Every structure is written in C-alpha cells, then in structure tokens.
C-alpha cells in the first residue's frame, strides 16, 4: 500500500517540481520496506536531505498521499541510520553483476549529499567501479566470513605507484627506507611495529605502500591492509552501529600486515584507541607486521593513551626529514619521468632550489610547469619554468586598501597623512594626493566616488582629473614613472 501511495506522490511531484529539485531531493528518497506500522516511511540518504524535504516538501507529500487514500497513514521522513555510509539499494543493480565483477552501484551518485546539493546540476545514476568495497552492508552474523572480509576489507588499497623503485633515497629518509626494505624482506620480525614519523609530504605514505607492495609481490595471497586512521575509526563506528564489532575485530586481527596512516587522528577517540590497542596486541602476538605513520614522535601525540604511545615504541621508530636539494632534484626528475615529461636537470634544480618545504609542493609546481608546457607548446627550460611559476611563488596576492595606498604614498613623498585628506592645494601636497588617487583607481576595485570620498570627501571628477594628470606626467616624466613603479612594487610585493 505504502509503495502505491509513494508512486502516486512521485508521479505528481515529478510533474510539479523543476527537474533539478526533483532529482536532488525527491528521487533519492526510498520507501522503507521494513515500516510495519501505519505510516509511509521514507528514508533520506542523510540528515540534511531529510531536514530539507521535511521543511520544503513534506506538506505537499502529505497532501498527495491523502489524495491517494492514505489519510490514516501519515508520511514520515527518516534517515538511513543502519548504514551511515552509502548502501546501494539491492534492487538497483543485478546481483550477478555485483558478485562477478565487484562492481556496485554507487549511491552517492544517486543521492544528494548535503543541502549544498541544491547546487547540484545532476546526480547521475551511474554504475561505478568500486575497487574498495568498504561498507558493512549487512548484519555480520548473517554473512559468511569471506564476505565479511570483502565488505569491511580493503583488497586493492595499495597504490601500485608507491614502490621502492619509485622512492628517491636521500640522507633525509635513508634510515626509514632501510628499515622498510628490511621489513619487506622479513615481515613480523624485530622491526614490529615500524613507526615512521615526520612532517607532511615527505614520503611516509610512499614507504608504507612500498612495503605493502613488496610483501604482496612476494606473497600474492597475503592479506595486506592499508588504510587511513579515519577509515579504521569509521569502520569501527559502523560495526558498532550494526552490532558487528566481532566481525570488525575478526577482520582486522586476521590480516598479515596492517598499515595505518596518520595515526595522530586517533587522538581523542577513546573507543577507537581501545579497539586499536587490542588489534595491535593481537597482531603483534601473531607476528603480523604493523606499520604506522604519524606527523610527530609517539610521545608527542596529545590525546593518545599512554599504553599506546608506549607500544608504538616497541619496534622501530624512524623519522623522515625534509629532503635536501639533491634529493628534491632527483624526486622532480623521477616524477616527471613518471608523467612522460622531459625535465632538464637545470630546470629541476631551479624548482628544487625555490621549493624546499615538502614533496607535495614540488609536485604541485611540477604539475603547473607541465600544464604550462602543454598549453604554450614551449619546451621546458629555466626561463619557461620561471615564467610559469611566477604566480605560484608569490606567497600572497595582497589586497591593497586605499588607506594603505595613502600611507605608503604619504611616506614616500614625506607628507603628513592628514595632508592626503586635507583641502590644501599646494603642489607639494596636491601632487602626492593625485598619485595616491590614481594608484587607488589602479590597484583597488573602488569606484571613483568611493575613492573621492576616501580623500576627504572629494568629488569623483577630482579623482578623474587626478588620474588623467598622473597619466600625463607618467608619459612625460621619468621621475614620475620611477615613483609609480616603486610605489606599485611596495604595495603589491
């Protein structure tokens, strides 16, 4: 009955609402087949969609439902709390396809995710390859072990590009690399856990994946799980919600190697720490390898239990430092090679000299250079690199204010700030004021009346006159040209 009522509502709403609104808010609603009471219960993909629908459409939906004969069946909208992630409606995709190919409907492509989805033009109901079937989609007691592993697990979570042969060795990462190689040869040995710490973008994740890939290459059926700490927390929350914590435990304690990135995000999450503590102990007892990365030394992680900090130090703790110049050059050349781009050594050297903080910034710069090379058709050399990175290297596009212009110009011409705004018309004051007005027009977005107002309530025609006068002087006087150049540099650098 509820299904019939909802179909009636859908038909009318589709006709009444613009397609965008219908697709964004109404289409993702699903009828709750489990609703046993006398209600038509609709399930929204998240709380925002629910709130939006209740606020904007529920009255109309109830009207339509009444028309369809459900006066005694009020319509309710709820949220899918059973699976806070995204669970494909079973009817949406043929089961054999899911089973055989590991392809599943990606419901996020069906559902608006937030009210920002009002801006969504179209949610394409698409079938997307899902290499990582991470969601827990059913009560674990009802699913066999191998399937539980499949839904919780991370079978293809290793990035194939992150290998030892693509990792550039330097003084800054020598020790970490040696330890990682050692572990790849002899997992679960004395370097367990391996704790790699250091700043962002220095290759911690790369090393971790490299070990995973090496282990996988040696033993293809090994269960190597890489995940970000946030994923561990999310999986655990879902498992708790689904009353499937035992399956969660079973899964994580059964892996051959567990690689967890950025464990600083465990800070303050006590229940996750508790669970991780037991997982950690179980894996260590079974001589299964663990590799953890963090942005700081274990003892320095605030909000992390002492017993965990202590255990993290049981194996080997190694730091990675920012790469030195030669390593940065080598990294750039390696990355360019990976993108099939010929990066001359001197161009790589130029970039590496100027960007020293971390590898991600180097990557960003390289991508920018490659994009420019594609666009202009120019070969990559130092002048071309300098040209394409000039805006990237500028730290900030300083927004210039009229006030700042007035102060800078007054200081340059050695007049008082109050003179900028005064009615005095002597040349020693009027000329700097004109320069400041002209610069305000050039460097800000203020209108001429606004600029006039900022200069002691002058008319916009005065500003216009000042702009013309300064232009004339600029054309005729070297001194004025130099002044303007200097002032512009002072204000914008």
């Amino acid at each position, binding site marked *: 009955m509820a299904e019939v009522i909802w179909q009636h509502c859908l038909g009318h709403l589709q006709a009444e609402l613009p397609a965008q609104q219908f697709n964004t808010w109404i289409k993702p609603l699903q009828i709750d087949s489990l609703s046993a009471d006398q209600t038509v219960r609709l399930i929204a993909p998240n709380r925002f969609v629910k709130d939006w629908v209740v606020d904007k459409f529920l009255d109309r939906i109830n009207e339509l439902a009444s028309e369809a004969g459900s006066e005694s069946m009020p319509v309710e909208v709820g949220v899918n709390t059973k699976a806070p992630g995204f669970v494909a409606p079973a009817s949406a995709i043929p089961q054999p396809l899911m089973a055989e190919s590991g392809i599943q409907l990606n419901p996020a492509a069906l559902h608006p995710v937030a009210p920002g989805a009002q801006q969504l033009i179209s949610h394409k109901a698409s079938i997307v390859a899902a290499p990582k079937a991470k969601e827990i989609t059913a009560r674990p007691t009802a699913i066999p072990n191998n399937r539980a592993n499949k839904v919780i697990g991370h079978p293809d979570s290793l990035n194939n590009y992150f290998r030892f042969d693509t990792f550039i060795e330097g003084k800054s990462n020598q020790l970490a690399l040696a330890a990682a190689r050692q572990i790849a040869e002899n997992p679960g040995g004395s370097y367990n856990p391996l704790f790699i710490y250091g700043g962002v973008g220095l290759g911690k994740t790369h090393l971790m994946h490299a070990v995973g890939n090496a282990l996988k290459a040696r033993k293809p059926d090994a269960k190597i799980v890489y995940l970000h700490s946030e994923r561990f927390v999310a999986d655990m929350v879902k498992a708790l919600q689904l009353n499937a914590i035992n399956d969660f435990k079973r899964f994580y304690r059964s892996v051959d190697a567990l690689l967890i990135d950025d464990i600083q995000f465990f800070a303050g999450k006590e229940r996750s720490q508790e669970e991780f503590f037991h997982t950690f102990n179980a894996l260590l007892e079974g001589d299964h390898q663990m590799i953890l990365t963090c942005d700081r030394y274990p003892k320095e992680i605030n909000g992390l239990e002492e017993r965990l900090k202590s255990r993290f130090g049981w194996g080997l703790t190694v730091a990675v430092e920012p790469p030195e110049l030669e390593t940065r050059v080598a990294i750039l050349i390696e990355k360019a090679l990976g993108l099939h781009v010929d990066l001359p050594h001197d161009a790589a050297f130029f970039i590496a000299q100027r960007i020293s903080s971390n590898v991600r910034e180097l990557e960003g710069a390289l991508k920018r250079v490659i994009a420019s090379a594609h*666009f202009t058709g120019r070969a990559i050399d130092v002048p071309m690199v300098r040209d394409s990175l000039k805006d990237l290297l500028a730290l900030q596009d300083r927004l210039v204010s009229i006030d700042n212009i007035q102060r800078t110009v007054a200081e340059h011409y050695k007049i008082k700030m109050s003179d900028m705004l005064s009615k005095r018309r002597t040349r020693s004051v009027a000329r700097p004021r004109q320069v400041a007005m002209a610069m305000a027009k050039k460097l800000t977005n203020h209108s001429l009346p606004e600029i006039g107002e900022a200069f002691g309530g002058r008319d916009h025609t005065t500003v216009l006159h000042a702009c013309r006068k300064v232009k004339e002087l600029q054309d005729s006087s070297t001194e004025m040209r130099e002044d303007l150049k200097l002032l512009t540099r002072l204000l914008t650098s």
Partner: protein
Amino acid sequence: MPAQQLNLALSLADDTHFDNFLAAAQTSRQQVLSTLKLQCKEQLSPSAGANILLWGATGSGLTHLLQAACHDAVACGQSIQYLPLEAMASYPAQDVLQGLAACQLICLDNIQAVAGIAEWEEALFHLFNQVMTAGGRLLISANAAPRALCFQLADLESRLAASTVFQLPQYSEAEKAAIVQFRAARLGLIMSEEALGFLMNRAPRDLHSLIDHLHRLDGFALQYQSKATIPLMKKAFGW
C-alpha cells in the same frame, strides 16, 4: 545536537559556461580555461594531477569557472557536486561532506571560508584522501595561494599545494568593460560606448557589482521601455 536547518537560496547559474567565459588569447586565464576543458574531456586520473586549485581576488572569474566545469562535467555524463563553502561553513563539516568522494567532480568554492575551523579542515583532509582513492577530482577556488590560506592542518595545506595551482589575475578595466558589454548584449540591452563609460566610472568597479548594476539597469530599461542611457542610469542609481 539538534539538526540544523539549511536555508540556502543558492543555485548554479544557468549562464556560467566555458563558452561565455571571456579569456584573451595566450593569457593565464585562457590557459586555465583550456586545462579545465581538457580535463573534463580526458578524464585525467588523479596521478596525472587531477586536482586543480584556482586562486585570485573576488571578481576574477573563479566561481564562473567552477560552475562552468560542473556544467561541462554533467554534459560529459559525470556526477558532480558544487559546494560554496562560504555558505556552508557554519554547518557540520562531516555531514556536509559525507559521501561526496563518490562524485567524479567536486567543486569547493571559496575554500578560505573554512580555514581555521578545525572540524572543517580535518573533514576536507579526509575528503582529499577519499577522492584520491576513489579516482575523482577536486576543483577548488580560493582567494590566495595554498600557503597563504592560513589552514592550521599542515596535511591539508600540503595536499592543496600538491594540486595544479593557477592564479587568475584581476580583470583589467578594458576586460571588465568588454564583459559588461558582452553581458549587456546577451540581455538584449542596447548600451552606447558613452553609457558604458558612465557606468564603469560610477559603479563599484568589481565585476560582481558591475554585473549586478547591469542587471538592475536591465530591469529599469524594461520598466521604462528605454535603452540603457546615461539619463536612465542617473534616474535608476541616483548618480
């Protein structure tokens, strides 16, 4: 915590397309345009540098490009999400971003609006990781280069910096005038050079205000059955 009710009156503008984005030949603006067009067609993989961050001052065309990329991606059959973060910053980040990573293109407009909000920074950091895993791409706009955005979370800042970063320069006066004229023509508004000059000299000179004045002027022109003349502007805007 009680659910917050969003009440946003925002939508993708119908006229934000690549083909009405004015970019002079051989300029950085044209380079950005060409890169964005190419990216949608070629479906670049994340390893090839799919994430793009555009930065520049207000009125340099950032929102237009992000929305145009959305239109283009939809035309290519991709799933998209456009989020103007200045309007979303006061809402729980996790709820807003939940499930977004499954989209093929995610546009985060005005990312600086959430800089310094720890919850948002962490949620965006996770979104970056999830998008990378899922093979989607992010198109981000900001008012400054990544390192100048004042994000507290270094992990997020470095990921932003790893994007292909382009600066969009401010429009010159001549470019702004050309855009106003172009938009006027699309509105069917007849505007002489003198009238255009009058508008440019008196309205606030950022592009948003100019376009806003143009739309208001269009309303007055319809109301008074007049061309966009100087007297009409004086009457309309009290200049």
